[in-house]
């Protein structure tokens, strides 16, 4: 079943079209990653979905309901981490969680336990009684995540959850996201950290200038862009000996001194060709320091799709 359906979503700010006929379908219990350049419309889509902002036309459903008109119980199914979470600055971390948890309908004694639980889960117990106005950016982000998962929602919407985090906190967030997924939570998140998307997402949506350019699996996106895997060879004392190597269906280039990049016209032939290429290079007099074959990652695909400039 589909947890989130977006069809023909249009949202403009004055003359500026932020989202242009976007379609996205997200299956229940899956993780969906939203990528795209700054200003592509990721945040706008998420906020329309949550009913925070009205949209011009289209259909936006979470668990089959339009959040603008949702009855209160349905809103409790969703947890939201904004791109820049803000709280009443005079409250402490604990007070923020207690008051938001109460608004999410959590019963008092359970809420207290649950607040302790998420503070510990995110490793921010030491900031329990600190005013949120005095928290660091990363801690604020953790508090934002804490309030999103506090009421154990079945749909999590996270706008750049891993921005502003140190490497181990990023790892922690990813672990929590994976654990939530294992429990059946549907997760929609946007991110510029493509390795995180590749690590977490079952499917991705690529957004550019308000339009959905691609929506589907990462493997499908890679196929669409048709990036081929390549062999990287590092050579010592490169005197251009490699230029004399001629093998059918093999293309050797030198992007920078000391490095060679090898492409095959037939990508099924790697197993046969790698030993032959190595042999030919050594016979030509190259001193090989290292070599490894690299599959294109999401970053390569993204750059090929979106282009370096935008």
């Amino acid at each position, binding site marked *: 079943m589909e947890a989130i359906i977006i069809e023909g979503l249009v949202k403009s700010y004055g003359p500026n079209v932020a989202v242009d006929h976007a379609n996205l379908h997200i299956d229940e219990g899956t993780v969906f990653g939203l990528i795209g350049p700054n200003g592509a419309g990721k945040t706008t889509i998420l906020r329309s979905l949550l009913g*925070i*902002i009205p949209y011009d036309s289209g259909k936006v459903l979470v668990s089959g309901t339009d959040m603008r008109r949702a009855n209160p119980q349905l*809103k*409790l199914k969703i947890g*939201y981490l904004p791109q*820049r979470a803000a*709280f009443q600055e005079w409250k402490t971390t604990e007070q923020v969680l207690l008051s938001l948890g109460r608004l999410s309908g959590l019963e008092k004694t359970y809420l207290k336990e649950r607040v302790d639980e998420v503070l510990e889960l995110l490793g921010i117990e030491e900031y329990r009684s600190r005013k949120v106005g005095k928290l660091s950016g990363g801690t604020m982000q953790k508090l934002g995540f804490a309030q999103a998962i506090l009421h154990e929602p079945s749909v999590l919407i996270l706008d750049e959850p891993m921005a502003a985090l140190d490497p181990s906190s990023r790892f922690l967030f990813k672990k929590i996201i994976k654990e939530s997924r294992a429990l059946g939570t549907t997760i929609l998140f946007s991110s510029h950290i493509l390795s995180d998307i590749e690590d977490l997402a079952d499917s991705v949506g690529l957004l550019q200038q308000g339009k959905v350019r691609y929506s589907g699996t990462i493997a499908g996106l890679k196929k669409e862009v048709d990036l081929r895997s390549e062999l990287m060879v590092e050579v010592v004392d490169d005197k251009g000996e490699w230029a004399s190597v001629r093998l059918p269906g093999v293309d050797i280039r030198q992007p920078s001194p000391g490095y060679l990049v090898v492409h095959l016209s037939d990508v099924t032939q790697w197993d046969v060709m790698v030993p032959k290429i190595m042999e030919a290079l050594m016979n030509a007099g190259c001193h090989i320091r290292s070599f490894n074959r690299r599959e294109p990652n999401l970053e390569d695909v993204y750059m090929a799709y979106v282009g370096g400039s935008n």
Partner: protein
Amino acid sequence: MNGFYRSKVMIALLIGMPLIALLLFVLTPDLEGLPLGSFTALMISSMAGLLASTTLAVSVINERTQGVYDLLIVRPVRRPHILLAKYLAVVVSVIAAAFLSLLVANIYDWLNNSPIDIGSSLAEPMMVTITMACVSCAVAILVGSLVRSVLLGIILTLYGGNQLSAVIVLTSLQDMMSTEAAAIIGLALAATLVVLAVIMFNRKLNS
């Protein structure tokens, strides 16, 4: 109702205002005929109103522009409740502060002059205070819902809110109409402004 929106400023007001009232009376015992109660009411409610209404306007502007309300909207909270809760919290605090200071003032008066009926000498100034608090805080939430700039918000609240409430209260002090009539007009005005503020707040949150 949602009392947790209350802030530290309000608590300071509750304690600070009676203290200021006390100080005022110690320093200026001779008030040239103006009834002591009315004088305190004006003094305190304009000061408390000044502080409270600008604080209220600034906090609405900040919280709105920073996106604090987004996290409330995605929960089962009605949008008008967010603003009304803030309004009520501040108005109630101002009224409580004013009541305390009036009480202090009247007790001082009672100790120093001939014994007077505290109950009746409290009623009219309280009516003035309540009216002023309601009007100036209503202007504050309206300004807070409309404006994005904190500076502009403060200026509009100061000049709009406090002048407006002062004008209404002054008409009664100058015996142009009864305090009751002035209070009714003031409260009606406040109610209109609150409704307007709620409408604007909804609209602005929607963009």
